């Protein structure tokens, strides 16, 4: 066996090799939370539609750190650390709610919806006794306030001091595809979460790995529901942080579904109700599938008429929560609503074309246990991180590692 002198040194300058210790090293995980999630990146916090009225809050995450996202009385969105200035208790222990101010339950210190400390209970004591010395400034330990930007109804936050404005961070070749999907006011349809038995990076790699789609997820091929030759492509942002993988519907007029139905009549081996894949070209450009990711932990999904945002919450080196929120638009016709409901069967932990992802990332976590100094091979489509016409490529995965290594200094 090859014993590496320093097992934590990156094995090669090339982006085509990734050492397995990155998925299990606790010290590395702690640095990731600092340099990546609390560093110069933008994290997706929630949809604006999740804060539909003034004076509301919901909780979210910056990496594994809990944050509070609020909409103040004027309608402005803020986010701050979910940590009391006093002893560090959670300020909000509910997922969401209405509030004009936020009070810590422990000793009732109060905050406004910007996260500013506004009140310290018994600050001057009672009857001249007790209380805090006049020269004490607990405000100095107030929860850190995030810089918040919203783009197309998506709320992002950062603690980074040197991070570019959000749209620039997402990238000029990616933002049009965000706008394309987030074209109208959002209507929430339902949310859930999935616990992945793996490191957070394995899920982001999986999302950026356009190569696995038709190989791991056998639903479409088994039931002969689409052609492998469908046109599409892979777009990677400059530096590799963000990506889009897309493919055209085989037929933009919806005939694909009719054809599938015809085949189901002719072949014994088919679905009885191919309506689960029936869809309409709601964006009018023939793109049937678009998976878009923003480093470090955001995914925007359009799979036919199934629309969702997903965000990751790292929960240690080998556990990750994936939070899904499915949506449609205000003014959706009943027909379109029904299609979105029908297509809910395709996605999520029970989805015909996605249930395998949770297992696959866990397989890597378990398979690479005991092989910390070995490395994976990420060489499909060469060594680069550029955009490509072929989705039989790991260019976006290499883009992930390029960004990761820059931020981590490894």
């Amino acid at each position, binding site marked *: 066996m090859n014993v590496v002198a320093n097992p934590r040194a990156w094995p090669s300058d090339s982006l085509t090799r990734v050492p397995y210790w990155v998925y299990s090293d606790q010290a590395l995980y702690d640095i990731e939370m600092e340099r990546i999630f609390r560093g110069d990146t933008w994290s997706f916090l929630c949809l604006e539609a999740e804060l539909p009225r003034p004076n509301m809050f919901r909780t979210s995450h910056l990496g594994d750190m809990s944050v509070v996202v609020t909409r103040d009385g004027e309608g402005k969105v803020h986010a701050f650390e979910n940590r009391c200035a006093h002893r560090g208790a959670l300020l909000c222990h509910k997922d969401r709610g209405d509030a004009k101010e936020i009070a810590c339950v422990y000793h009732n210190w109060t905050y406004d919806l910007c996260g500013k400390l506004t009140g310290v209970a018994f600050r001057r004591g009672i009857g001249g006794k007790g209380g805090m010395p006049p020269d004490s400034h607990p405000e100095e330990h107030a929860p850190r306030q995030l810089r918040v930007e919203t783009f197309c109804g998506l709320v992002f936050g950062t603690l980074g001091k040197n991070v570019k404005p959000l749209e620039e961070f997402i990238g000029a070749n990616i933002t049009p595809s965000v706008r394309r999907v987030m074209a109208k006011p959002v209507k929430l349809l339902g*949310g859930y979460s*999935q616990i992945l038995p793996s490191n957070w990076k394995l899920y982001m790699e999986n999302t950026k790995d356009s190569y696995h789609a038709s190989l791991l997820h*056998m639903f479409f091929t088994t039931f002969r529901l689409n052609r492998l030759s469908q046109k599409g492509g892979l777009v990677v942002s400059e530096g590799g942080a963000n990506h889009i993988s897309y493919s055209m519907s085989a037929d933009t007029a919806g005939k694909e579904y009719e054809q599938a139905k015809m085949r189901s009549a002719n072949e014994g081996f088919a*679905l*009885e*109700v191919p309506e689960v894949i029936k869809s309409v070209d709601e964006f009018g450009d023939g793109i049937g599938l678009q998976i878009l990711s923003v480093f470090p932990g955001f995914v925007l999904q359009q799979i036919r008429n199934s629309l969702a945002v997903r965000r990751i919450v790292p929960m240690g080196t080998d556990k990750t929560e994936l939070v899904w929120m499915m949506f449609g638009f205000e003014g959706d016709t009943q027909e379109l609503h029904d299609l979105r409901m029908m297509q*809910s069967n395709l996605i999520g*932990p*029970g989805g015909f074309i996605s249930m395998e992802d949770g297992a696959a990332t866990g397989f890597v976590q378990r398979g690479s246990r005991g092989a910390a100094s070995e490395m994976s091979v990420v060489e499909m489509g060469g060594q680069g991180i550029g955009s490509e016409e072929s989705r039989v490529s790991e260019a976006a995965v290499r883009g992930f590692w390029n960004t990761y290594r820059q931020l981590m200094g490894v």
Partner: protein
Amino acid sequence: MSVNLEHQFRVQDLNARYTEAIDDDRLESWPDFFLPEGKYLINTAENVAHGLPLGFMFATSQAMLRDRIKALRQANIYEAQRYRHVLTAPRLVEDNGGVLLARTSFMVARVMHSGETMLFATGMYEDRIVLNGDKTLFAEKKVILDSRQIDTLLAIPL
């Protein structure tokens, strides 16, 4: 409401046979517990409380349930696993002679091929059940999960 004990028993018996079929891996018989136009859905209590309709599974016919089993058997890839359902006695919420509305609480343990066993899901069945002669069938089965979290994946129905 005075409870019709025969109806109560028929609901309990239906759910007992239903969960036994799943736990014994007789998934091909799972759709037979439903009417041809029977509905099946799995959603979270949180979504239901907020009036949000979209959850983990949604079927509007027995044929869709057959498709799901066909997909599980032939297309989807997941590690070998079994469930063990434990049910409470049902509570009849409505009884209009031929149509019953019943609620039953459940817990499901998931047993992996490795032997690893975990509490996988808890929740409530909200069933609309049709009594047709000596047949007892689901017109609609709503599986409402207490938690929004699913561990890894949800392949086998609940």
